[in-house]
């Protein structure tokens, strides 16, 4: 059994210093002189064989003994002995530290978080790092971050470890392992150490090419949290706010849920959450103006994770949907008349139609340049599709359609007659269409009849045939189809449904075009952002739950809340075994990762004590023979 070893055994040559030490001691020893009446007795004493035994002689030179001890301890410390902790040591070891939201959970009231526990264990490893060992610290939540390269600089590693903070987002182990794999190409290693609570999917799509030492942290305490928050506009114009409360496997008990609108409490409810069950509730909020909702969950008992006790939702104000439909599309305008909350442009009495719209439906290509998040082109091939699709006149019929597409919900298209014939261009197919970002929703005989493209600018539908040259306007499904398009426009405009803002990335913020702002995070740090030409600020990182303020010249322009709404993080469930590709499974390590215990600090402390003893002995006032 290997108990330990030395990292720098070559330093034993320092033992040769014993010779000069003894030499200098006897050369330099200066004893204080003390005159006594007679040496008669002392000479007899010192001639006694008991005094002259080698051990007694050595005892007389206590100062030399202390100096030799001091040197021995120093030399022993210089050889850097260590007490073997683990089965063996790796020369290079990447260390993955999970810092997702669940790692902030405490084990008990007043206890330590999972991340703090992981940091403690990594710190022990750093402290016991041998001179020929290198660690690479990588933290990961939904994205991995390489904090250090492979190094044995303990100060650097400790600083990097201190920088690891919990992000209130789920973890993505796959991305972290891919980063580690990339590291291994330049600096090979055999083993990777993973510190996590196991709160990630049990199946990871990754080809494991190294040994993974999965150090699963002890489970956290019970937790209740908000796992869903959304709002839907009711027919009355008000908002129905849906809240879902879930807990970890061992969480149960009472809690209160309070709803705040623009900072004012407007509703409160007491709930009881049973073990393994979710609790749902609905609040009514007037939708006459835009407002900011905050849901606060306050469990009665201990709650290990605080980040999921708050959720935020921005409700848009109530307004009619602005729809542009040219007067030539009579059937569409007529279908829109049956839908409440629609403001059609141009109006019947006027041709004026300016400004931004929520929905543009037109059979004129130039109308597609109007500003709107939802657009429906009718009867022509959009310019970007002209490469893939061409319009013929031989007529077509519907072969199939995507019945699960929201825009085709409850729309029956069987036996639809179409005079136009959209068809794929020579050598083009559906795959090319998909590569261009379009998705076919209705399939004709020779090509797609309806395609959809969704991007950051909104959603665009393109009916590649003109409805006026088809039997669609005469079918029951046509007003339903128009209503579905309107519903899609409502969703795009945020007028039909509102979802809670999640942590990770803030939703796009509409501000002044080209404006420069500062985003103030819940930790009161600021980050500069610039709005694009449309006044949109997007991609703002929101790693922590809380309010994010948009500042312009120090003045708050807007506040956006972001909260953790991940059921998996709230559940604090941890997987004991990770399954990788090719049915490769990695179970949690059965033993806590033990590090080699360096003995040199202890030896140095002992040496210091010996040195102090020697100093005291050397400096103390000589006694006797006053």
């Amino acid at each position: 059994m290997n108990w330990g070893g030395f990292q720098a055994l070559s330093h034993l040559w320092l033992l040769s210093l014993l010779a000069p030490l003894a030499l200098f001691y006897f050369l330099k020893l200066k004893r204080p002189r003390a005159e006594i009446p007679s040496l008669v007795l002392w000479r007899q004493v010192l001639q006694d064989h008991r005094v002259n035994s080698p051990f007694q002689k050595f005892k007389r030179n206590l100062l030399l003994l202390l100096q030799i001890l001091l040197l021995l301890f120093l030399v022993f410390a210089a050889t850097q002995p260590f007490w073997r902790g683990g089965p063996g040591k790796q020369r290079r070891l990447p260390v993955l530290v999970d810092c997702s939201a669940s790692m902030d959970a405490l084990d008990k009231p007043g206890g330590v978080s999972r991340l703090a526990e992981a940091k403690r264990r990594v710190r022990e490893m750093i402290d016991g790092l041998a001179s020929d060992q290198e660690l690479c610290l990588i933290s990961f939540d939904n994205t991995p971050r390489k904090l250090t390269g492979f190094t044995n600089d303990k100060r650097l590693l400790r600083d990097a470890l201190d920088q690891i903070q919990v992000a209130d987002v789920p973890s993505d182990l796959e991305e972290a392992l891919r980063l580690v794999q990339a590291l291994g190409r330049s600096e090979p290693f055999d083993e990777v150490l993973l510190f996590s609570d196991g709160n990630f999917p049990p199946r990871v799509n990754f080809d494991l090419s190294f040994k993974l030492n999965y150090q699963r942290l002890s489970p956290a305490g019970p937790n209740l949290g908000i796992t869903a928050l959304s709002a839907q506009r009711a027919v009355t114009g008000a908002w129905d706010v849906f809240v879902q409360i879930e807990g970890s496997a061992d969480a149960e008990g009472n809690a209160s849920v309070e709803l705040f609108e623009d900072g004012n409490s407007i509703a409160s409810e007491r709930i009881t959450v049973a073990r393994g069950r979710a609790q749902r509730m609905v609040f009514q909020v007037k939708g006459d103006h835009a407002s900011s909702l905050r849901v606060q969950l306050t469990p009665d008992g201990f709650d290990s994770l605080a980040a999921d006790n708050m959720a935020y939702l921005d409700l848009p104000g109530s307004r009619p949907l602005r729809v542009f439909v040219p007067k030539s599309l009579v059937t569409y305008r007529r279908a829109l008349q049956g839908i409440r909350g629609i403001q059609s442009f141009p109006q019947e009495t006027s041709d004026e139609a300016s400004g931004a719209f929520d929905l543009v439906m037109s059979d004129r290509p130039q109308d597609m340049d109007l500003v709107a998040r939802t657009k429906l082109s009718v009867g022509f091939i959009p310019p970007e599709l002209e490469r893939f699709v061409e319009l013929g006149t031989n007529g077509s019929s519907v072969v199939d359609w995507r019945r699960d597409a929201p825009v085709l919900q409850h729309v029956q298209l069987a036996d639809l007659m179409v005079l136009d014939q959209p068809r794929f261009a020579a050598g083009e197919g559906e795959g090319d269409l998909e590569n261009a970002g379009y998705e076919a929703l209705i399939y004709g005989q020779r090509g797609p009849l309806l395609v959809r493209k969704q991007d950051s600018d909104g959603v665009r539908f393109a009916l590649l045939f003109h409805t006026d040259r088809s039997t669609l306007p005469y079918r029951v499904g046509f007003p339903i189809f128009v209503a579905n398009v309107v519903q899609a426009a409502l969703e795009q405009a945020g007028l039909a449904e509102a979802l809670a803002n999640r942590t990770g990335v803030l939703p796009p913020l509409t501000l002044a075009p080209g404006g420069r702002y500062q985003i103030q995070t819940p930790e009161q740090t600021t980050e500069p952002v610039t709005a694009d030409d449309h006044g949109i600020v997007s991609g703002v990182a929101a790693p922590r739950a809380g309010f994010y303020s948009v500042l312009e010249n120090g003045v708050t322009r807007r506040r956006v809340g972001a909260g953790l709404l991940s059921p998996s993080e709230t559940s604090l469930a941890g997987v004991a075994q990770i399954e990788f590709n090719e049915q490769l499974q990695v179970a949690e390590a059965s033993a806590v990762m033990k590090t080699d215990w360096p003995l040199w600090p202890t030896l140095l402390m002992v040496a210091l004590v010996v040195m102090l003893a020697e100093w005291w002995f050397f400096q103390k006032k000589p006694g006797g023979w006053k």
Partner: protein
Amino acid sequence: MELLTPRPQMTTLLTNSVLDRLQRLRIRPAGKRTSRSRGEHLSGKGGTSTEFCDYRDYSPGDDTRFVDWNIFARLHRPYLKQFHKEEERHVVLLIDASASMKFEGKLDLAKPLAAAFGVMGLLNNERVSAYTSHQAGGAPDRMPPCRGRASLRTLFQFIESVEGRGDAPLDRAVELLLRHHSGRGVCVIVSDFLTFGDLKRSFNMLFAAGLEPMGIQILSPQEIEPDVTSDLRLVDSETQETLDVSSSADLLNLYQEYRQGLENDLALLCRRRQGRFLPVSSATPVESVLFDQLRRQGWIE
């Protein structure tokens, strides 16, 4: 009212009260060693004093004046009356005045002790002589034998003038003393007895000369309980020789063992020569030594 003026001190060695008490005391040696000359001490042999001692059978040649005629008339046999013989005792004082006695008041105790023995001798009509040893090889300072109360001042002046110096070994001092001395009695040796020499030979010579050794060893507190707590270079005050010692409990224990051994050896030396031995600390008051220790151990009565 007439004021009483205090009596002037006779000597700086002993206070008047100590002297008053000493007048009532006398030296009590273990054996009866006296000189042939007539004195106040009864000899073991028959003498011509007026104090009857015993009868013995008449032998031809005996002085017929001492025949008890009354007994002869009753028993018809001659018996000779015997009387105690009163002989003179010699008190020899030897004060070790080497440099080693200067430490921690050793000589300051030795001088009054020697003076006290001298006083007791003089007041009891004994011959008192005093010697001090200083330099090795040199003759000891000497106060010739004297007798009687009138010699007190001479004794005090001699002892008061003693100063600690020199490296005279005690054994050598005894030999030199015996060159000048004659007569039987006691020899009071006041010393630390820390000598490299052979004291056995010196004590044998004292015994052969008819002097009963009465040794008083005076050691300083530091010699009795040395406090060596570090590495030291000890320097002999007489020879200036050096010795390196390091503090250790074992070393001090050995020292005590050897010191006790020296005491035992000295006591044995004295006892085998019908003498006495007393170790005292220089910190002990002279009154305590005289009227407590010496009296309790029967040195004086």
